[in-house]
């Protein structure tokens, strides 16, 4: 479903991603792990072209989703970002009501049928396992709920535009353990309808949650395979050193 071939990415002169090729299947969870600065977040941002916002970057190679190169000239970036949603490390709900946060994506896409919006908001909040907790305070500010709930709100907000792919950049690193495990449980349910790629610096989380794991180091893809294998018997010594904590 997602495919990259011979990707090289530069921040100015810095060679951030070196010759990476890999593919991800639909309805799987892929974890990207590796030490700080290894390029995993940069790699994640390729898929919704958020790197475009950073000046002076260069990309060579192909990134395709569903067989289509998303960096082609005629690709509309806003369209792409509806199909590829993103959840950020620190919860960033808008200073609007809970309802309006979830409805935002629909509104910017031109939808204004009140009934449909209300239905989809409810659906998205249910998908994000947040509906029961907020259903009687939809008009309250998004800042009136806890951090873990805010993050699930951001997930609902991303789901409301009905993407195919969900990118998660360390979604639980700013949260307490209980919120973290709620979000991990959520991911198992979401897997049925979405393809998920998650960046995490928490190896145990990658092990718990993902089907495939990609280990990055200094911009290179060292190893990519089934999570089962990576955590029981990885091919490369470097990978083993990292997952056993002997790294560095």
């Amino acid at each position, binding site marked *: 479903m997602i495919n990259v071939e011979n990707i090289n990415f530069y921040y100015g002169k810095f060679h951030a991603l070196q010759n990476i090729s890999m593919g991800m299947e639909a309805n799987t969870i892929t974890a990207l792990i590796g030490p700080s600065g290894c390029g995993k977040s940069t790699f994640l941002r390729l898929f919704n072209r958020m790197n475009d916002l950073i000046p002076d970057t260069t990309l060579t190679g192909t990134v395709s989703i569903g067989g289509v190169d998303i960096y082609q000239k005629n690709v509309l970036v806003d369209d792409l970002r509806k199909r590829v949603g993103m959840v950020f490390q620190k919860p960033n709900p808008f*200073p609007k009501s809970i309802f309006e946060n979830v409805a935002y994506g629909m509104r910017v896409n031109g939808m204004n049928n009140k009934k449909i919006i209300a239905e989809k908001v409810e659906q998205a909040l249910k998908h994000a396992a947040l509906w029961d907790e907020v259903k009687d305070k939809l008009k309250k500010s998004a800042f009136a709920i806890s951090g873990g709930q805010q993050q699930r709100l951001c997930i609902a907000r991303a789901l409301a535009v009905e993407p195919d792919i969900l990118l998660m950049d360390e979604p639980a690193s700013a949260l307490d353990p209980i919120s973290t495990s709620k979000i991990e449980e959520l991911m198992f349910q979401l897997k049925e309808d979405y393809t998920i790629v998650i960046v995490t610096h928490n190896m145990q989380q990658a092990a718990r949650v993902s089907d495939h794991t990609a280990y990055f180091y200094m911009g290179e893809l060292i190893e990519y395979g089934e999570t089962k294998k990576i955590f029981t018997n990885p091919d490369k010594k470097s990978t083993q050193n990292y997952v056993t904590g002997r790294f560095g």
Partner: protein
Amino acid sequence: MNDEIKMQQIHRRKRLYEAIFFGLFRIMGFMVVLILGFILCFITMKGIGVMSWEFITASPTDGLTKGGIFPAIVGTMCLIAGSMIFAFPIGVLSGIYTTEYAKTGKWVKFIRLMTNNLSGVPSIVFGLFGMSLFVNTLGFGDSILAGSLTLGLLVLPVVIRTTEEAILSIDDSFRHGSLALGATKLQTINRVVLPMAFPNIITGLILSIGRVSGETAPILFTVAAYFLPQLPTSIFDQVMALPYHLYVIATSGTNIEASRGIAYGTALVLIIIVLTLNLAANVIRNYIQKKIK
């Protein structure tokens, strides 16, 4: 033992310095309040004598020694409105441009430099410029139009700067969140950034209004009339204005002593207008902030 004593001495000294400086800060703070209070009290005491319904609604009579200041009030209101109509949209849009669209590069730095320089130009120079361009070259004559444009130019840098600050203070994470949902840059600005920046932009508005109401030099050659009891009917008309009226009465009126009371009354009205407008803008800002929360 010696070490302990030294430590204690150092601690005591630190605490003394703190007490001194905080005391100073407190005094400074109070002084500001005192000064403002003094000005208000002084003007109020001196000017309250002439305050009456007639003062506010009637025109000046008897060579500006008696009557009211209604035309000047109207004139000042017109100029506030006119200059805001000019400065506010241009200033805000310009601020949005430099912060959201043309973020980096020599061009933006140049624009910022020019904006800052503009705010340093003396107001009388603005007046002269306004007279030269609007009154003479463009042929508007002494008019509300010329005066508004000149005053607008005067406060333009203020509006631009406060807009820039307001927008820059909004964390990128909100922009990223919006863009990641498929919103365009324009939608992000309209639906997320501007609403959040609005309260601070209104602050810029408040500052500008205060400035515009009280400036005398820019309106000297462009719109202010010495004595014009009729209310303006078009933007090409001249008008009286409160600050100029105050100046005129206090310095070159026909009978300075007699009209001194009116001068203080004018000052009082001017202050009241500015404070009222400030208050209104603050109320609006707080209301909007509450809605956001």
